Protein backbone atom coordinates (compact mmCIF):
# COMPACT_ATOMS: atom_id res chain seq x y z
CA UNK A 1 0.00 0.00 0.00
CA UNK A 2 1.45 3.38 -0.95
CA UNK A 3 1.91 5.98 1.79
CA UNK A 4 0.15 8.64 -0.25
CA UNK A 5 -2.23 8.12 -3.11
CA UNK A 6 -4.36 10.66 -4.94
CA UNK A 7 -7.02 9.71 -7.46
CA UNK A 8 -8.39 12.12 -10.02
CA UNK A 9 -7.24 15.01 -7.86
CA UNK A 10 -8.78 18.14 -9.39
CA UNK A 11 -8.98 21.78 -8.40
CA UNK A 12 -10.68 24.48 -10.42
CA UNK A 13 -10.19 28.21 -9.94
CA UNK A 14 -13.15 29.64 -11.81
CA UNK A 15 -12.78 28.20 -15.29
CA UNK A 16 -9.14 27.22 -14.86
CA UNK A 17 -8.26 23.68 -13.89
CA UNK A 18 -5.11 24.33 -11.86
CA UNK A 19 -4.84 20.64 -11.02
CA UNK A 20 -6.62 18.29 -13.36
CA UNK A 21 -7.22 14.58 -12.71
CA UNK A 22 -3.83 13.93 -11.17
CA UNK A 23 -3.07 10.44 -9.92
CA UNK A 24 -0.05 10.56 -7.67
CA UNK A 25 1.44 7.84 -5.53
CA UNK A 26 4.29 8.03 -3.07
CA UNK A 27 5.68 4.82 -1.60
CA UNK A 28 7.03 4.60 1.91
CA UNK A 29 10.70 5.59 2.10
CA UNK A 30 10.88 7.28 -1.30
CA UNK A 31 12.14 10.71 -2.27
CA UNK A 32 9.80 11.89 -4.99
CA UNK A 33 10.19 15.12 -6.95
CA UNK A 34 7.29 17.08 -8.35
CA UNK A 35 8.43 19.34 -11.18
CA UNK A 36 6.94 21.31 -14.01
CA UNK A 37 7.10 24.72 -15.67
CA UNK A 38 5.71 27.77 -13.87
CA UNK A 39 1.96 27.54 -13.43
CA UNK A 40 1.90 23.79 -13.84
CA UNK A 41 -0.02 23.34 -10.61
CA UNK A 42 2.71 22.14 -8.27
CA UNK A 43 1.96 24.53 -5.44
CA UNK A 44 -1.78 24.03 -5.83
CA UNK A 45 -1.10 20.33 -5.57
CA UNK A 46 0.78 20.90 -2.30
CA UNK A 47 -2.01 23.05 -0.95
CA UNK A 48 -4.51 20.32 -1.74
CA UNK A 49 -2.43 17.62 -0.10
CA UNK A 50 -1.89 19.67 3.06
CA UNK A 51 -5.52 20.74 3.34
CA UNK A 52 -5.07 24.46 2.66
CA UNK A 53 -7.29 24.04 -0.39
CA UNK A 54 -10.19 21.68 -0.83
CA UNK A 55 -10.19 19.62 -4.02
CA UNK A 56 -13.00 20.24 -6.49
CA UNK A 57 -12.98 16.51 -7.19
CA UNK A 58 -10.91 13.44 -6.45
CA UNK A 59 -9.56 11.89 -3.30
CA UNK A 60 -6.41 11.87 -1.20
CA UNK A 61 -5.55 8.75 0.79
CA UNK A 62 -2.73 8.92 3.31
CA UNK A 63 -1.57 5.68 4.88
CA UNK A 64 -4.86 3.96 4.11
CA UNK A 65 -7.01 6.79 5.46
CA UNK A 66 -9.06 9.11 3.30
CA UNK A 67 -7.96 12.61 4.29
CA UNK A 68 -9.79 14.51 1.56
CA UNK A 69 -11.34 17.69 2.94
CA UNK A 70 -9.68 17.55 6.35
CA UNK A 71 -8.37 20.81 7.76
CA UNK A 72 -4.61 21.56 7.72
CA UNK A 73 -4.00 20.93 11.41
CA UNK A 74 -5.82 17.61 11.22
CA UNK A 75 -3.71 16.51 8.30
CA UNK A 76 -0.54 17.62 10.07
CA UNK A 77 -1.60 15.63 13.12
CA UNK A 78 -1.70 12.50 10.96
CA UNK A 79 1.95 12.88 10.04
CA UNK A 80 1.73 14.71 6.73
CA UNK A 81 3.66 17.94 7.28
CA UNK A 82 4.59 20.60 4.77
CA UNK A 83 7.03 23.47 4.51
CA UNK A 84 6.37 26.70 2.69
CA UNK A 85 7.98 28.48 -0.22
CA UNK A 86 10.46 31.20 0.63
CA UNK A 87 10.62 32.06 4.28
CA UNK A 88 7.33 31.57 6.03
CA UNK A 89 8.61 31.51 9.59
CA UNK A 90 7.81 33.07 12.94
CA UNK A 91 10.20 35.94 12.33
CA UNK A 92 9.95 37.52 15.77
CA UNK A 93 10.83 34.32 17.62
CA UNK A 94 14.16 32.59 18.10
CA UNK A 95 15.13 29.61 16.00
CA UNK A 96 14.57 27.31 18.98
CA UNK A 97 11.12 28.72 19.65
CA UNK A 98 10.22 28.10 16.03
CA UNK A 99 11.21 24.48 16.33
CA UNK A 100 9.44 24.10 19.65
CA UNK A 101 6.23 25.15 17.98
CA UNK A 102 6.85 22.38 15.50
CA UNK A 103 6.98 20.05 18.49
CA UNK A 104 3.59 21.33 19.54
CA UNK A 105 1.98 18.52 17.60
CA UNK A 106 3.46 15.79 19.71
CA UNK A 107 3.45 17.41 23.08
CA UNK A 108 -0.28 17.23 23.54
CA UNK A 109 -2.63 20.05 22.72
CA UNK A 110 -5.16 19.49 25.46
CA UNK A 111 -6.45 22.66 27.01
CA UNK A 112 -5.45 21.59 30.49
CA UNK A 113 -1.88 21.02 29.38
CA UNK A 114 -1.82 24.39 27.70
CA UNK A 115 -3.15 26.33 30.64
CA UNK A 116 -1.16 24.66 33.36
CA UNK A 117 2.16 24.35 31.63
CA UNK A 118 4.27 26.11 34.22
CA UNK A 119 7.12 26.96 31.93
CA UNK A 120 6.83 27.51 28.26
CA UNK A 121 8.31 24.14 27.40
CA UNK A 122 9.54 21.22 29.52
CA UNK A 123 13.24 20.33 29.35
CA UNK A 124 12.70 17.13 27.37
CA UNK A 125 10.98 19.07 24.61
CA UNK A 126 13.68 21.69 24.58
CA UNK A 127 16.19 18.87 24.25
CA UNK A 128 14.27 17.48 21.31
CA UNK A 129 14.08 20.92 19.76
CA UNK A 130 17.84 21.30 20.04
CA UNK A 131 18.21 17.87 18.47
CA UNK A 132 16.27 18.98 15.42
CA UNK A 133 18.49 22.06 15.19
CA UNK A 134 21.57 19.85 15.57
CA UNK A 135 20.45 17.59 12.75
CA UNK A 136 19.92 20.54 10.45
CA UNK A 137 23.16 22.24 11.43
CA UNK A 138 21.50 25.22 13.11
CA UNK A 139 22.49 24.42 16.70
CA UNK A 140 24.75 27.47 16.95
CA UNK A 141 21.85 29.76 16.03
CA UNK A 142 19.28 28.37 18.47
CA UNK A 143 18.77 31.60 20.41
CA UNK A 144 19.03 34.02 17.54
CA UNK A 145 15.94 35.83 16.34
CA UNK A 146 14.78 34.21 13.14
CA UNK A 147 14.62 37.48 11.22
CA UNK A 148 18.35 37.96 11.82
CA UNK A 149 19.32 34.62 10.28
CA UNK A 150 20.70 34.55 6.74
CA UNK A 151 18.37 33.36 4.01
CA UNK A 152 19.85 29.89 3.69
CA UNK A 153 19.55 29.25 7.41
CA UNK A 154 15.96 30.45 7.40
CA UNK A 155 15.07 27.95 4.72
CA UNK A 156 16.69 25.14 6.66
CA UNK A 157 14.91 26.28 9.81
CA UNK A 158 11.62 25.77 7.97
CA UNK A 159 12.64 22.17 7.42
CA UNK A 160 13.78 21.76 11.03
CA UNK A 161 10.37 22.94 12.23
CA UNK A 162 8.54 20.49 10.03
CA UNK A 163 10.89 17.74 11.25
CA UNK A 164 10.14 18.54 14.87
CA UNK A 165 6.53 17.68 14.11
CA UNK A 166 7.79 14.12 13.37
CA UNK A 167 6.24 13.70 9.96
CA UNK A 168 5.88 10.40 8.16
CA UNK A 169 5.58 12.25 4.89
CA UNK A 170 7.33 15.58 4.49
CA UNK A 171 6.27 17.94 1.71
CA UNK A 172 9.06 20.36 0.86
CA UNK A 173 8.03 23.36 -1.22
CA UNK A 174 11.06 24.64 -3.13
CA UNK A 175 13.62 23.88 -0.41
CA UNK A 176 16.68 25.17 -2.29
CA UNK A 177 15.30 28.02 -4.36
CA UNK A 178 17.51 31.08 -4.14
CA UNK A 179 20.47 29.16 -2.70
CA UNK A 180 23.95 28.90 -4.12
CA UNK A 181 25.43 25.60 -5.23
CA UNK A 182 27.11 24.94 -1.90
CA UNK A 183 24.01 25.66 0.17
CA UNK A 184 21.68 23.69 -2.05
CA UNK A 185 24.05 20.74 -1.96
CA UNK A 186 23.95 20.77 1.84
CA UNK A 187 20.17 20.97 1.92
CA UNK A 188 19.89 18.06 -0.48
CA UNK A 189 22.24 16.04 1.73
CA UNK A 190 19.96 16.94 4.62
CA UNK A 191 16.96 15.68 2.66
CA UNK A 192 18.71 12.34 2.22
CA UNK A 193 19.58 12.21 5.91
CA UNK A 194 15.96 12.86 6.82
CA UNK A 195 14.87 10.04 4.56
CA UNK A 196 17.49 7.90 6.24
CA UNK A 197 15.67 8.50 9.52
CA UNK A 198 12.54 7.00 8.01
CA UNK A 199 10.66 10.00 6.66
CA UNK A 200 9.24 9.82 3.16
CA UNK A 201 9.71 12.97 1.10
CA UNK A 202 7.81 14.68 -1.67
CA UNK A 203 9.40 17.87 -2.92
CA UNK A 204 8.70 20.62 -5.40
CA UNK A 205 11.77 22.28 -6.81
CA UNK A 206 12.91 24.29 -9.81
CA UNK A 207 16.58 23.57 -9.38
CA UNK A 208 16.93 20.62 -11.80
CA UNK A 209 20.38 19.65 -10.64
CA UNK A 210 19.14 19.30 -7.10
CA UNK A 211 16.04 17.36 -8.14
CA UNK A 212 17.85 15.00 -10.49
CA UNK A 213 20.56 14.31 -7.95
CA UNK A 214 18.28 13.57 -5.03
CA UNK A 215 14.96 12.14 -6.15
CA UNK A 216 14.47 8.51 -7.05
CA UNK A 217 11.28 9.19 -8.90
CA UNK A 218 10.02 12.31 -10.58
CA UNK A 219 6.53 13.36 -11.54
CA UNK A 220 6.19 16.08 -14.14
CA UNK A 221 3.12 18.32 -14.19
CA UNK A 222 2.13 20.59 -17.04
CA UNK A 223 -1.03 22.71 -17.22
CA UNK A 224 -2.39 20.89 -14.22
CA UNK A 225 -2.01 17.44 -15.69
CA UNK A 226 0.51 14.70 -15.16
CA UNK A 227 2.80 14.76 -18.16
CA UNK A 228 5.37 12.12 -17.30
CA UNK A 229 6.64 10.02 -14.45
CA UNK A 230 9.76 7.97 -13.95
CA UNK A 231 13.37 7.92 -12.83
CA UNK A 232 15.42 11.08 -13.33
CA UNK A 233 16.99 9.57 -16.45
CA UNK A 234 13.65 8.62 -17.97
CA UNK A 235 12.15 11.98 -17.29
CA UNK A 236 15.05 14.07 -18.46
CA UNK A 237 15.09 12.30 -21.82
CA UNK A 238 11.34 12.29 -22.33
CA UNK A 239 10.30 14.25 -25.43
CA UNK A 240 7.10 15.45 -23.77
CA UNK A 241 9.03 16.89 -20.88
CA UNK A 242 11.60 18.61 -23.05
CA UNK A 243 8.79 20.10 -25.13
CA UNK A 244 6.98 21.33 -22.06
CA UNK A 245 10.08 23.09 -20.79
CA UNK A 246 11.61 24.28 -24.03
CA UNK A 247 8.65 24.46 -26.41
CA UNK A 248 8.37 23.07 -29.92
CA UNK A 249 9.76 25.93 -31.93
CA UNK A 250 12.31 23.93 -33.93
CA UNK A 251 11.32 21.37 -36.50
CA UNK A 252 13.35 18.27 -35.72
CA UNK A 253 12.27 16.41 -38.85
Amino acid sequence: MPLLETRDLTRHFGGLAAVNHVDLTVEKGEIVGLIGPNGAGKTTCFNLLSGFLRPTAGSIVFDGENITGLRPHQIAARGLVRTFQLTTLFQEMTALQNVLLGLHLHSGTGLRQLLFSRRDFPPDEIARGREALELTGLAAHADQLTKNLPHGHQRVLGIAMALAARPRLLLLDEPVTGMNLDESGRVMDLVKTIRGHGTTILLVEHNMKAVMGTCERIVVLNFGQKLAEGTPDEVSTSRDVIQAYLGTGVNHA
Partner: protein
Amino acid sequence: MRRRAGVLGVLAILVVLALLVPQLGGDYYVHIFALVFTNVILAASLRPSLTCGQLNIGHSAFMSIGAYTSALLAKNLAVPFELSLLGGAVLATLVGVVIGYPSLRLRGVYFAMVTVAFVEVIRLIAQLWVSLTRGMSGLSGIPKPNLLGMTLTTKASQYYLGLALMLIVLLILWKLEKSRLGLIWKSIGMADNLAQSLGVDIARHKLLAFMLGCFFAGVAGAFYAHFIRFLFPPEFGFLMATNILVYNYVGGRGHFVGAIVGAIFLSLLSEPFRGSPYETIFFSIAMLLTILFLPGGLITLPEKLAGLRRWRAAAPTPSPAA
Protein backbone atom coordinates in the same frame (compact mmCIF):
# COMPACT_ATOMS: atom_id res chain seq x y z
CA MET B 1 17.77 38.09 36.50
CA ARG B 2 18.76 41.57 37.61
CA ARG B 3 16.38 42.96 35.02
CA ARG B 4 13.64 40.82 36.48
CA ALA B 5 14.36 42.13 39.97
CA GLY B 6 14.25 45.68 38.61
CA VAL B 7 10.89 45.08 37.00
CA LEU B 8 9.50 43.58 40.18
CA GLY B 9 10.83 46.55 42.18
CA VAL B 10 9.15 49.07 39.90
CA LEU B 11 5.97 47.03 40.10
CA ALA B 12 6.05 46.97 43.90
CA ILE B 13 6.55 50.74 44.05
CA LEU B 14 3.64 51.29 41.69
CA VAL B 15 1.36 49.06 43.73
CA VAL B 16 2.34 50.86 46.96
CA LEU B 17 1.67 54.22 45.29
CA ALA B 18 -1.69 52.94 44.08
CA LEU B 19 -2.51 51.83 47.62
CA LEU B 20 -1.71 55.30 48.93
CA VAL B 21 -3.87 57.24 46.45
CA PRO B 22 -6.99 57.37 48.66
CA GLN B 23 -4.87 58.61 51.60
CA LEU B 24 -2.90 61.21 49.69
CA GLY B 25 -5.36 62.38 47.05
CA GLY B 26 -8.99 63.25 47.46
CA ASP B 27 -12.09 61.67 46.01
CA TYR B 28 -11.25 63.20 42.66
CA TYR B 29 -8.12 61.12 42.25
CA VAL B 30 -9.82 58.04 43.62
CA HIS B 31 -12.45 58.41 40.95
CA ILE B 32 -10.01 58.97 38.11
CA PHE B 33 -7.71 56.13 39.05
CA ALA B 34 -10.57 53.67 39.48
CA LEU B 35 -11.52 54.47 35.89
CA VAL B 36 -7.90 54.01 34.86
CA PHE B 37 -8.06 50.52 36.38
CA THR B 38 -11.06 49.59 34.25
CA ASN B 39 -9.28 50.90 31.19
CA VAL B 40 -6.20 48.84 32.03
CA ILE B 41 -8.34 45.71 32.32
CA LEU B 42 -9.98 46.50 29.00
CA ALA B 43 -6.70 47.16 27.21
CA ALA B 44 -4.96 44.08 28.59
CA SER B 45 -7.91 41.81 27.85
CA LEU B 46 -7.81 42.84 24.20
CA ARG B 47 -4.26 41.49 23.89
CA PRO B 48 -4.99 37.78 23.38
CA SER B 49 -7.18 38.61 20.41
CA LEU B 50 -4.72 41.17 19.04
CA THR B 51 -1.83 38.76 19.46
CA CYS B 52 -3.73 36.28 17.30
CA GLY B 53 -3.79 38.96 14.63
CA GLN B 54 -7.46 39.83 15.01
CA LEU B 55 -8.31 43.50 14.78
CA ASN B 56 -11.06 43.61 17.37
CA ILE B 57 -12.89 46.96 17.46
CA GLY B 58 -15.80 45.62 19.44
CA HIS B 59 -14.49 45.34 22.94
CA SER B 60 -16.74 48.02 24.41
CA ALA B 61 -19.78 45.94 23.51
CA PHE B 62 -18.67 43.17 25.84
CA MET B 63 -17.94 45.66 28.56
CA SER B 64 -21.47 46.96 28.06
CA ILE B 65 -22.95 43.47 28.38
CA GLY B 66 -21.00 42.87 31.57
CA ALA B 67 -21.99 46.25 32.98
CA TYR B 68 -25.72 45.98 32.26
CA THR B 69 -25.96 42.34 33.32
CA SER B 70 -24.23 42.90 36.63
CA ALA B 71 -26.12 46.12 37.31
CA LEU B 72 -29.53 44.59 36.56
CA LEU B 73 -28.80 41.44 38.56
CA ALA B 74 -27.81 43.50 41.58
CA LYS B 75 -30.54 46.08 41.22
CA ASN B 76 -33.52 43.87 40.38
CA LEU B 77 -32.58 40.60 42.07
CA ALA B 78 -30.27 41.82 44.84
CA VAL B 79 -27.53 39.48 43.66
CA PRO B 80 -24.23 40.10 45.53
CA PHE B 81 -21.37 41.67 43.58
CA GLU B 82 -19.20 38.56 43.35
CA LEU B 83 -22.02 36.71 41.59
CA SER B 84 -23.32 39.56 39.48
CA LEU B 85 -19.78 40.21 38.26
CA LEU B 86 -19.45 36.56 37.32
CA GLY B 87 -22.85 36.65 35.64
CA GLY B 88 -21.88 39.69 33.59
CA ALA B 89 -18.56 38.18 32.56
CA VAL B 90 -20.11 34.84 31.65
CA LEU B 91 -22.88 36.40 29.59
CA ALA B 92 -20.32 38.58 27.79
CA THR B 93 -18.34 35.41 27.04
CA LEU B 94 -21.38 33.54 25.75
CA VAL B 95 -22.34 36.40 23.46
CA GLY B 96 -18.68 36.48 22.42
CA VAL B 97 -18.91 32.85 21.32
CA VAL B 98 -22.02 33.57 19.30
CA ILE B 99 -20.29 36.46 17.53
CA GLY B 100 -16.82 34.98 17.41
CA TYR B 101 -17.59 31.54 16.10
CA PRO B 102 -19.06 32.52 12.71
CA SER B 103 -16.69 35.46 12.16
CA LEU B 104 -13.47 33.62 12.98
CA ARG B 105 -12.79 32.75 9.39
CA LEU B 106 -12.78 36.42 8.50
CA ARG B 107 -9.46 38.20 8.52
CA GLY B 108 -8.17 41.69 9.04
CA VAL B 109 -10.58 44.37 7.97
CA TYR B 110 -13.49 41.99 7.51
CA PHE B 111 -13.29 40.76 11.07
CA ALA B 112 -12.90 44.34 12.26
CA MET B 113 -16.08 45.32 10.41
CA VAL B 114 -18.09 42.59 12.10
CA THR B 115 -16.90 43.76 15.51
CA VAL B 116 -17.71 47.41 14.72
CA ALA B 117 -21.20 46.45 13.58
CA PHE B 118 -21.62 44.46 16.76
CA VAL B 119 -20.80 47.47 18.95
CA GLU B 120 -23.64 49.33 17.30
CA VAL B 121 -26.03 46.41 17.69
CA ILE B 122 -25.37 46.16 21.41
CA ARG B 123 -25.61 49.93 21.83
CA LEU B 124 -28.97 49.95 20.03
CA ILE B 125 -30.28 47.08 22.12
CA ALA B 126 -29.30 48.94 25.30
CA GLN B 127 -30.94 52.06 23.91
CA LEU B 128 -34.18 50.50 22.67
CA TRP B 129 -34.93 47.86 25.28
CA VAL B 130 -36.30 50.57 27.53
CA SER B 131 -38.29 48.30 29.84
CA LEU B 132 -35.08 46.58 30.91
CA THR B 133 -32.29 49.13 30.51
CA ARG B 134 -34.28 52.40 30.75
CA GLY B 135 -32.80 53.24 27.32
CA MET B 136 -31.57 56.76 26.80
CA SER B 137 -32.74 57.84 30.26
CA GLY B 138 -29.81 55.80 31.53
CA LEU B 139 -29.80 53.10 34.15
CA SER B 140 -29.44 54.66 37.58
CA GLY B 141 -29.77 53.44 41.13
CA ILE B 142 -27.26 50.65 40.69
CA PRO B 143 -26.34 49.34 44.15
CA LYS B 144 -22.86 49.84 45.51
CA PRO B 145 -20.75 46.70 45.30
CA ASN B 146 -21.87 44.24 47.93
CA LEU B 147 -18.96 41.90 48.45
CA LEU B 148 -19.01 38.88 50.78
CA GLY B 149 -21.93 40.35 52.68
CA MET B 150 -20.34 43.78 53.10
CA THR B 151 -21.44 46.82 51.16
CA LEU B 152 -18.50 48.93 50.04
CA THR B 153 -19.94 52.34 50.78
CA THR B 154 -16.89 54.59 50.51
CA LYS B 155 -15.30 55.51 47.21
CA ALA B 156 -11.95 54.52 48.70
CA SER B 157 -13.06 50.95 49.41
CA GLN B 158 -14.49 50.67 45.91
CA TYR B 159 -11.21 51.97 44.61
CA TYR B 160 -9.38 49.15 46.38
CA LEU B 161 -11.83 46.67 44.89
CA GLY B 162 -11.00 48.01 41.43
CA LEU B 163 -7.28 47.82 42.16
CA ALA B 164 -7.58 44.23 43.35
CA LEU B 165 -9.65 43.21 40.34
CA MET B 166 -7.15 44.81 38.00
CA LEU B 167 -4.19 43.08 39.63
CA ILE B 168 -5.91 39.69 39.52
CA VAL B 169 -6.93 40.08 35.87
CA LEU B 170 -3.45 41.27 34.90
CA LEU B 171 -1.83 38.35 36.70
CA ILE B 172 -4.07 35.84 34.93
CA LEU B 173 -3.58 37.40 31.50
CA TRP B 174 0.15 37.73 32.00
CA LYS B 175 0.46 34.09 33.07
CA LEU B 176 -1.52 33.02 30.03
CA GLU B 177 0.60 35.09 27.71
CA LYS B 178 3.75 33.55 29.17
CA SER B 179 2.37 30.03 28.92
CA ARG B 180 2.48 27.85 25.86
CA LEU B 181 -0.96 29.14 24.97
CA GLY B 182 0.51 32.62 24.60
CA LEU B 183 3.21 31.32 22.31
CA ILE B 184 0.57 29.72 20.15
CA TRP B 185 -1.36 33.00 19.95
CA LYS B 186 1.81 34.73 18.90
CA SER B 187 2.48 32.11 16.25
CA ILE B 188 -1.02 32.52 14.82
CA GLY B 189 -0.56 36.28 14.67
CA MET B 190 2.79 36.01 12.91
CA ALA B 191 2.01 33.33 10.33
CA ASP B 192 -1.28 31.54 10.69
CA ASN B 193 -0.70 29.23 7.72
CA LEU B 194 2.55 27.99 9.22
CA ALA B 195 0.90 27.50 12.61
CA GLN B 196 -1.79 25.44 10.92
CA SER B 197 0.71 23.34 9.06
CA LEU B 198 2.33 22.51 12.41
CA GLY B 199 -0.93 21.21 13.77
CA VAL B 200 -2.33 24.23 15.57
CA ASP B 201 -6.11 24.37 15.38
CA ILE B 202 -6.18 28.08 14.69
CA ALA B 203 -9.97 28.37 14.71
CA ARG B 204 -10.16 26.95 18.22
CA HIS B 205 -7.35 29.08 19.54
CA LYS B 206 -8.67 32.28 18.00
CA LEU B 207 -12.05 31.61 19.55
CA LEU B 208 -10.50 30.90 22.94
CA ALA B 209 -8.46 34.11 22.82
CA PHE B 210 -11.53 36.06 21.81
CA MET B 211 -13.63 34.52 24.60
CA LEU B 212 -11.01 35.36 27.22
CA GLY B 213 -11.10 38.96 26.11
CA CYS B 214 -14.90 39.02 26.33
CA PHE B 215 -14.85 37.55 29.82
CA PHE B 216 -12.49 40.16 31.23
CA ALA B 217 -14.19 42.99 29.38
CA GLY B 218 -17.31 41.79 31.18
CA VAL B 219 -15.42 41.97 34.48
CA ALA B 220 -14.33 45.53 33.72
CA GLY B 221 -17.92 46.42 32.84
CA ALA B 222 -19.30 44.97 36.05
CA PHE B 223 -16.87 46.95 38.18
CA TYR B 224 -17.58 50.10 36.19
CA ALA B 225 -21.33 49.67 36.66
CA HIS B 226 -21.15 49.43 40.44
CA PHE B 227 -18.55 52.14 40.74
CA ILE B 228 -20.13 54.83 38.53
CA ARG B 229 -23.62 53.51 39.32
CA PHE B 230 -25.07 55.00 36.16
CA LEU B 231 -25.07 53.39 32.71
CA PHE B 232 -25.76 55.27 29.52
CA PRO B 233 -25.82 53.30 26.23
CA PRO B 234 -23.75 55.68 24.04
CA GLU B 235 -20.86 55.47 26.54
CA PHE B 236 -20.12 51.97 25.23
CA GLY B 237 -20.03 52.97 21.60
CA PHE B 238 -17.53 52.96 18.82
CA LEU B 239 -15.41 55.64 20.48
CA MET B 240 -14.67 53.55 23.54
CA ALA B 241 -13.98 50.50 21.37
CA THR B 242 -11.39 52.38 19.34
CA ASN B 243 -9.90 53.90 22.49
CA ILE B 244 -9.21 50.42 23.85
CA LEU B 245 -7.43 49.60 20.62
CA VAL B 246 -5.49 52.86 20.74
CA TYR B 247 -4.31 52.09 24.31
CA ASN B 248 -2.67 48.97 22.91
CA TYR B 249 -1.06 50.65 19.94
CA VAL B 250 0.17 53.74 21.77
CA GLY B 251 1.48 51.67 24.67
CA GLY B 252 3.08 49.18 22.33
CA ARG B 253 1.89 45.83 21.12
CA GLY B 254 5.21 44.06 21.46
CA HIS B 255 4.96 43.43 25.18
CA PHE B 256 2.28 42.80 27.78
CA VAL B 257 3.27 45.98 29.64
CA GLY B 258 2.39 48.02 26.55
CA ALA B 259 -1.35 47.69 27.08
CA ILE B 260 -0.99 48.82 30.70
CA VAL B 261 1.29 51.75 29.92
CA GLY B 262 -0.95 52.87 27.07
CA ALA B 263 -4.12 52.66 29.14
CA ILE B 264 -2.68 54.56 32.10
CA PHE B 265 -0.94 57.21 30.01
CA LEU B 266 -3.85 57.96 27.71
CA SER B 267 -6.59 57.76 30.36
CA LEU B 268 -4.80 60.27 32.56
CA LEU B 269 -3.84 62.59 29.73
CA SER B 270 -7.29 62.55 28.15
CA GLU B 271 -9.03 63.19 31.47
CA PRO B 272 -9.56 66.95 30.85
CA PHE B 273 -11.32 66.12 27.56
CA ARG B 274 -13.53 63.32 28.89
CA GLY B 275 -16.93 63.36 27.24
CA SER B 276 -16.13 66.40 25.09
CA PRO B 277 -15.57 66.33 21.32
CA TYR B 278 -11.89 67.00 22.00
CA GLU B 279 -11.55 63.46 23.32
CA THR B 280 -11.73 62.02 19.80
CA ILE B 281 -9.22 64.57 18.54
CA PHE B 282 -6.88 63.79 21.40
CA PHE B 283 -6.92 60.06 20.73
CA SER B 284 -6.50 60.57 16.99
CA ILE B 285 -3.45 62.73 17.53
CA ALA B 286 -1.97 60.30 20.04
CA MET B 287 -2.41 57.49 17.53
CA LEU B 288 -0.92 59.50 14.66
CA LEU B 289 2.10 60.59 16.68
CA THR B 290 2.71 57.01 17.73
CA ILE B 291 2.54 55.67 14.19
CA LEU B 292 4.85 58.40 12.95
CA PHE B 293 7.48 58.55 15.70
CA LEU B 294 7.16 55.47 17.88
CA PRO B 295 5.76 52.60 15.84
CA GLY B 296 6.67 50.21 18.66
CA GLY B 297 4.68 52.26 21.17
CA LEU B 298 5.65 54.02 24.37
CA ILE B 299 7.42 50.95 25.73
CA THR B 300 10.10 51.41 23.08
CA LEU B 301 10.71 55.01 24.15
CA PRO B 302 13.66 54.29 26.51
CA GLU B 303 15.38 52.29 23.78
CA LYS B 304 14.77 55.06 21.28
CA LEU B 305 16.16 57.72 23.64
CA ALA B 306 19.22 55.62 24.40
CA GLY B 307 19.80 55.22 20.67
CA LEU B 308 19.47 58.97 20.20
CA ARG B 309 21.97 59.69 22.98
CA ARG B 310 24.49 57.28 21.50
CA TRP B 311 24.04 58.93 18.15
CA ARG B 312 24.55 62.39 19.70
CA ALA B 313 27.66 61.24 21.52
CA ALA B 314 29.10 59.76 18.35
CA ALA B 315 28.43 62.85 16.24
CA PRO B 316 31.15 65.54 16.32
CA THR B 317 30.13 68.57 18.37
CA PRO B 318 29.58 71.57 16.11
CA SER B 319 31.98 74.41 16.90
CA PRO B 320 30.30 77.50 18.38
CA ALA B 321 31.88 79.72 15.73
CA ALA B 322 30.12 77.93 12.87
